[in-house]
């Protein structure tokens, strides 16, 4: 049994490698959609925002948490939608 901290560190380290390797050969055509898609993925901070909203113990915390929720939702949903719009056009050329 390893400690929780070490487990998280291992997960962190492995994730770095996965992130590096997965995109390392992307063609320049896809730079923008990839950036935009990755950008949408970190919108998953929404999960964290919801958690802290639930835990919030006073109005200041709640307000900040709700702002975080709004921002995170914009990041996440907007990011995926705009990426899809870009890629839709790429796809059109297949026809």
């Amino acid at each position, binding site marked *: 049994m390893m400690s*929780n901290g070490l487990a*998280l560190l291992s*997960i962190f380290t492995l*994730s*770095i490698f996965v*992130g590096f390797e*997965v*995109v390392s050969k*992307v063609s*320049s*055509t*896809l*730079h*923008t*959609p*990839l*950036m*935009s898609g*990755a*950008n949408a*993925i*970190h919108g*998953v*901070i*929404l*999960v*964290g*925002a919801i*958690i*802290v*909203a*639930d*835990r*919030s113990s006073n109005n200041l915390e709640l307000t*900040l*948490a*709700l*702002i*975080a*929720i*709004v*921002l*995170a*939702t*914009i*990041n996440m*949903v*907007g*990011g*995926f*939608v*705009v990426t*899809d*719009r870009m*890629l*839709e*056009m*790429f*796809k059109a*050329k297949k026809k």
Partner: protein
Amino acid sequence: MSRNLYDLIGLAAAVCFILALKGLSHPKSARRGNLIGAFGATVATLLVFFFTGNSGEPDWHALPLRHLPLILGAILIGLLVGVPAARKVQMTQMPQLVALFNGVGGGAAALVAIVEYLRLGSSASPAVVIATVFTVVVGSVSFSGSCITFAKLQELMTTRPVVFPGGRFLIAANVAGVFAAGAWVINSGGNTPLLVLAGLSLLFGVLFVLPVGGADVPIVISLLNAFTGLTVAASGYVLQTTLLIVAGTLVGASGTILTRLMAEAMGRSLFKTLFGAFTAKPQATSTEAETRSVKSGSPEDIAILLNYARRVVFVPGFGLAVAQAQHTVRELADLLTAKGIDVAYGIHAVAGRMPGHMNVLLAEANVPYEQLQEMDEINPTFAQTDVALVIGANDVVNPAAKNLPGCPIYGMPILEVADAANVVFLKRSMRPGFAGIENELLYDPKTTLLFGDAKETLTKVVSALKNL
């Protein structure tokens, strides 16, 4: 839902994100990749609404969530802002929007860490406080930095590097301040230090991006994107949520690589991009050229030129996007092809305002994929090309990138249109492009200029060609 099941589904969502990035790296699977990512994010979000922490884990919530209506309301607001923005934005303004989305993400991550810090108060462990400091600093930098990139791209401010006397020292002082405030938070805790830290970090984001030249802005956006990823990972540590750690780290790592790849595509070193403005001498611009005469032609002249060519290469740039001329270009290309003329498009990696911009626009106009050729592919063929038709592009064909050391685009590989027998520029004026440097090629004897909005002039060329 038990904690194990919760973590298992979270892991599945993390796998979705990996598959999303994998998919996004290949043209064929890119769209599916994005959808997989969206699916993962949706699952991850829904998960929180269904998970009850058990009694042994006081940090976790009982169902239903407290403040559920407010939370749902906030999500709704986010949807109402984000979705229309994403759907309605013009293709030319896409980079700004991505910058903004990235900035708000960084802001959200910083806020999450702040709220948790406020709540925990003095009960926060040192590791959590350090992670909080990191999140607040990087998240704030990402937020304010992204706002400045937005302002630059939206041309709310100059796209030139902003350097002012003493800027270097101001930045140094700012960095020192951030470190000091960070140490203050870690040592004494409390809310004031955190506020100071956030303020200084926001300032640093501004100072960090101001000196970056407009042409390098996408690189900075990509870098800030990676920053935001790391911020999310750190908040994941604060909240002990593995999914956030994995997702954030993935974005952080892939964003870093992507930033490097982008910088390479523009032929610039990452370090110079970020800190070049401090070390560079005042920028060289080729000003002497302005009094010289240029050769301009009518749409009919160009039509004749094209009609007798055997091979024509289109070089689209930002102006094509502004004029929304992609469909007209396509029409012209079809017309030429029908006449048995060989047609290709030379796509520079940084043509337009974001990497891959031209591919998107031309794909929108159903230009066949085989006709789109990247720089390395097309450059050797210009020698066999009769007409290079430069449509609303400037920097990407500017020989100053090779000849004028010290100019903002020096070192960037360019499309060698000068090798073609004839060069035609479609632009509205003699004004320079994004990087703000004169283009010698405009004065070259083999160059013809066709002034006017690209869409209008192209339409005229098309009808002239039909009448020949």
